[in-house]
């Protein structure tokens, strides 16, 4: 697991501790796979943005829709 995958996994665990990241489909919709609602998603984005000290504007949300896409997004923006 890459560093960024670990960070995302950790933050997801804090919001949806009932879901095992090993069992999800990383290409499917993140919100559905982790059973998180809009509020949870906002909290996730806020936590990641704080931890990585990056801006994650709402206009970019479409680029964060799956686990894989989110990791890519974080990797691109935290350089």
């Amino acid at each position: 697991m890459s560093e960024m995958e670990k960070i995302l996994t950790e933050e997801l665990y804090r919001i949806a501790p009932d879901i095992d990241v090993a069992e999800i489909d990383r290409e499917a919709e993140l919100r559905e796979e982790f059973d998180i609602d809009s509020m949870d998603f906002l909290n996730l984005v806020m936590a990641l943005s704080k931890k990585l000290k990056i801006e994650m504007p709402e206009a970019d949300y479409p680029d964060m829709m799956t686990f894989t896409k989110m990791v890519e997004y974080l990797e691109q923006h935290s350089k």
Partner: protein
Amino acid sequence: MDYDIIRKSLDIKAGSNMPDYEQAVADFSWRHAKSLLHGFADGKLNIAYEAVERHVKSGCGQKIALRWITKNGDVCDYTYADLSSLSSRFANVLDRLDINKGERVYTLLGRVPELYITALGALKAGCVFCPMFSAFGPEPVQARMKIGGAAVLITTKALYKRKMVSIRAELHELREVLIVDDSESEGSRDFHGLMDATSDQFETVAMDPEDMALLHFTSGTTGMPKGVVHVHEAVVAHNITGRLALDLQPEDIYWCTADPGWVTGTSYGIIAPLTNGVMLIVDEAEFDVARWYKNLSEQGVTVWYTAPTAIRMLMKSGSELPAEHNLSKLRFMASVGEPLNPEAVEWGNEIFGMPFHDNWWQTETGGIMIANYASMDVKPGSMGKPLPGITAGIVEKIDGGVREVSEPLTIGELALKPGWPSMMRAYLDEEARYQKCFVDNWYLTGDLAVRDSDGYFWFVGRDDDVIKSSGHLIGPFEVESALMEHEAVTEVGVIGIPNETAGQIVKAFVALQSGYVPNEDLRLELLGHARKRLGPAVAPKEIVFRKNLPKTRSGKIMRRLLKARELGLPEGDISTLESDEK
């Protein structure tokens, strides 16, 4: 009440379905409202006939009834004729599976066409339609299916696996499960396979106006969820309130963003728009700022019915995105779910050139009861005035009864004179709980409100402990029960705490059995435990540990006190407090 009144122009008033509110109130009769529908001989009727068949019979079959936008953004149109034949097929499927008139047809689905087909087909066949929220976990699903005696469930493969497998054996009355995105597998059938094998002709069953049509669940402070019963006659109210409160006109393109698992998603997400013959926009995807503005502009939405949580999230995202979209088709915006703060009403006026029109109603009322109308000046923060045909009042409790208070701005309980067509007819199998809602010929809503000297109503608060999060009512008892099932937990108190976006969020105070240490791992374990059972919409967003929770002499946890302390409010009467918080 310090915000400027938003005045309506003469043009807007003249173009609306109800140009003069006072006149409409004076002229209104439910008999006339009913005459706008078709009905059958001997006073019988059927909601599905009024929603779909009536338009097909009058030559509007080729009009688009429902435009479905898939998650990927593809668009799929269904005409009124399509809905007619598909719902007939589904009614035939029910018949073939030996699901009879009066039996309960449940859905656990997102915003997919099968939901609308199921709702209309079930009603056509005389069955009772009961939608469930797909973000519920197995426990809320099980409670709702048990209480309502679900005979058949329509769901997806993923939701079945996640929410149904663990509880199926407990549901003794459940005879069939139909899966919309999978072929036949163990214990379930293929929805589309069955649909394809039946005829698209079905004669709508003529129902008695008082026959049960819809079952919606709502939460109370104590006990399990309540099954709220609505009858076919309710369509009279759905239709006229869609016309008066949402100003629906036949050429409208209407977008109701409510989830189909809640009452708004049925009354104003299916029935009212279809009986009014409009084109309905249905977006499968969840809330997303950019996508929503795109929907409004690309689909040319004219009437938009949404919720405070969404409006506040749009507000937060700023005014640049809406400026990039052509929103010129939009002519009426309404909001429901919880009181819309005046800032949001004004923001709407600034960005869209019109205010959001807040309205008020409940699962129990079946339709909009108090509203801001297209033709009426808006006082930001007010829920508006009662619909024509509805008598609302502010009452105070006296000696086991209630009395209406006439002095403006007196806080009391919001109450309605019973008798409108979409009023609930029962809490399923809970007659005593139902009767408790009616006192001295008033229906008591449980909401506290005031009426100002101009007759506008203003929400003040809830009279009980129910939590309103993102517009959804959550009963603290349901959340507490789920947490109590965990071996580490000895006591739980659950309250709603204010949240900028969601209105309120669920917070749980937990005391542990001896031997358990309150730490982050245990907190996350409890959170996971609650989410697994309750689903994300109901599970607490915050959990904190306490050594002891404040209790009365009889051992009842004092949620009121937890809340007052959380919010730094006066503790009020604590004479019944026996064992205090630690």
